[in-house]
């Protein structure tokens, strides 16, 4: 057993970290204000190849798995999760293509070749598939101002929508670097759909999407923990650094503990996905834990900075808003808990060690 990420992924993670720190972090407020990332940042991102991490080799990707994705996303999310969503044009919408036989190579190469922006929405977001070939419904918020196509993922399968939808920009609570809009389907015809016997594949696609979001959350939480901790060691009150008052020292400890624990859950679920083991409950649980942890880490990071934390001069108010916004995607905490809970209740001993050889 080895709980550490493999060394060969180190280089990719390092690339992601460098890009995040040098290109994304310094421009996060600008990207938020402009509701998009600057073209030169996008160019630099395309050069890193990070968007192609999980794409099949046939369309020029590196065909890496979920572990690589979650490690990279944590780095990007720590700098600017909104920009991370914007930069990766296909994003989690990739997973239904990968997991289901909807001509993955054909559609994907067109999408990638044209540089199209694709969004993933699920039933819990508000999209409804009627009569197997038409989509209706409204998704009140998607982190995008525009899209070329939408992948609709349900429990039974997935399909691609290219017409019959519109996105009306809204202000957005967070992640504005990716834009923000209300998505409406107007009897949108489903193309390229796969619904027959696709349940298991749909589950896996959703699991991968959950980890995509969860790992961005890990990044935001890490940034919030690191920033507030450093601040607490500098800032003085009552004659000592505020971090040396036990109430804050313990709070900082608990925040770090929550982050480290959530990260291990994400890593284990990603490993299970890559190993082809049952992973949907583990992924849903990891997703839920990230949302849960972020709900305390975000506001607590602001609390540690006091009034300064409330002001946009510091990043923690952005961390707090964006963590919350990220946590609303894919049906949020409730949908993740519901999925994991149903699955755990189907077994007698959900955590017995060594079941099937793995932890």
């Amino acid at each position, binding site marked *: *057993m080895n709980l550490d990420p493999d060394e060969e992924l180190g280089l990719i993670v390092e690339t992601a970290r460098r890009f995040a720190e040098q290109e994304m972090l310094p421009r996060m407020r600008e990207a938020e204000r402009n509701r998009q990332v600057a073209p030169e940042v996008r160019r630099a991102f395309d050069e890193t190849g990070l968007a192609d991490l999980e794409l099949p080799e046939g369309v020029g990707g590196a065909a890496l798995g979920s*572990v690589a994705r979650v490690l990279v996303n944590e780095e990007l999310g720590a700098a600017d999760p909104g920009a991370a969503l914007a930069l990766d044009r296909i994003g989690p919408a990739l997973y239904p293509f990968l997991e289901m036989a909807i001509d993955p190579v054909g559609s994907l190469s067109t999408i990638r070749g044209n540089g199209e922006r694709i969004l993933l929405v699920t039933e819990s977001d508000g999209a409804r598939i009627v009569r197997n070939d038409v989509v209706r419904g409204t998704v009140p918020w998607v982190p995008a101002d525009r899209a070329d196509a939408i992948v609709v993922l349900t429990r039974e399968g997935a399909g691609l929508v290219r017409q019959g939808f519109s996105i009306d920009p809204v202000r957005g609570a967070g992640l504005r670097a990716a834009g923000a809009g209300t998505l409406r389907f107007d009897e949108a015809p489903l193309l390229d759909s796969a619904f027959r016997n696709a349940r298991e594949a749909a589950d896996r696609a959703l699991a991968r999407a959950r980890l995509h979001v969860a790992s961005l959350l890990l990044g935001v939480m890490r940034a919030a923990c690191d920033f507030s901790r450093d601040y607490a060691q500098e800032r003085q009150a009552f004659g000592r650094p505020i971090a040396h008052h036990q109430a804050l020292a313990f709070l900082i400890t608990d925040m770090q503990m929550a982050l480290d624990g959530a990260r291990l*859950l994400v890593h284990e679920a990603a490993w299970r996905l890559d190993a082809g083991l049952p992973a949907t409950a583990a992924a849903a649980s990891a997703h839920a834990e990230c949302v849960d942890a972020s709900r305390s880490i975000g506001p607590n990071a602001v609390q540690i900075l006091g009034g300064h934390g409330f002001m946009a001069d510091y990043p923690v108010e952005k961390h707090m808003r964006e963590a919350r916004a990220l946590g609303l995607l894919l049906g949020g905490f409730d949908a993740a808990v519901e999925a*994991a*809970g149903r699955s755990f*209740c189907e077994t007698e*001993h959900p955590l017995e*060690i*060594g079941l099937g050889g793995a*932890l």
Partner: protein
Amino acid sequence: MDFNLDEETRSALEALRKWGREVVRPVGLEADRLSRPIPVDDPYFERCLLRGDGRTRWQPHADARSTRSRSVLTQLLLAEEFAYWDRGVMIANPGPGLPEASVIALGTEEQKERFLGPFVEPDRPRWACFAMTEPGAGSDAAAIQTRATKDGDGWILNGAKCFIGSASRSDWILVQATLDPSKGRAAQRAFFVEQGTEGLGPFKIEKKMGLKAYESSSFSLENVRVPASHLLGGETRRERSAGFKAAMSTFNAGRPVIAANAVGIGRAALDEAIRFAREQDLLGDPRVRDRIEAMTRKIRMARLVCLRAGQLADERRPNIVEASMSKALAAQVAQEAASQALELLGSTGGRGDHLIEKLYRDAKAMDIVEGTGQIQRMIIARQLVSLPR
């Protein structure tokens, strides 16, 4: 990354699971029902010896490094599994227990031979224990008052110790004492006090809320005389002690064991909760499912944090933060899991005869022993934000 278990660990777990189900759980339930520790002459302890338990990992005629033992990771998984069946019984098991590691690291060859020797092939169930805590000092271990004064070529010990596991049945007790209470940790030494030594005792077996299968005793030391050879490490122990302390300040393998125990207790509560919910047809209720999900998620997380601390220890990498985190987190998670499970039982939990109700009482100690949750947070905060001592 690899979450697969090796074959040896799997078969050890499998054997322990069978032992746990058939023997440990019933013995633990009985001790709890009768509200007393497992008696010294209980056949259970003989069965432990037949199984190969109760032995020291120290090997005569070998240096400290060649002691045979499993990886920390495997030990943690086994500690979780044992506690799943009964954590009290696990601690009741015979063997050199808590002080073994200190004796192996710091003891002289004669001390190892004399005090660990009988545990190599024990002729009967034997115990040993470590006595640090006193009525007036627990967390603040620097403040213990038990005095050691030089008397000719021996030592005289005076003081009182409390809550010491298996003390009255131990062959010897490793007693922590101070040469000068005003000098804190630096003036502390550990002494082997053999059972029956004049002035040791009487032992008061405490009535505990949980973990009743093992004995926790309080006792006093009144002019207890021990020879010079009973000072751990001897007079010249200092260098070895410095090395041991340095090691203790970078990795810790003890706290993750308590964390693993807590995970085991939590997991037992989870499984019982699921079983109860299924029998009562409650699994259709989303509130019930949400509870089970939260328990599963938090326990799984605590387990991973614990294993991560163990892996670092195996690799001889610093794990102080991780070890303390694992203990602080797992103790909290286990308590919450048992509490949630009790909630699920409803008033059935109030009857006092359900395993979950026992687990709820047992779990609490995990946040107290070997450094409370607060003490763990202080240790972590020293590393994270340089919290002053």
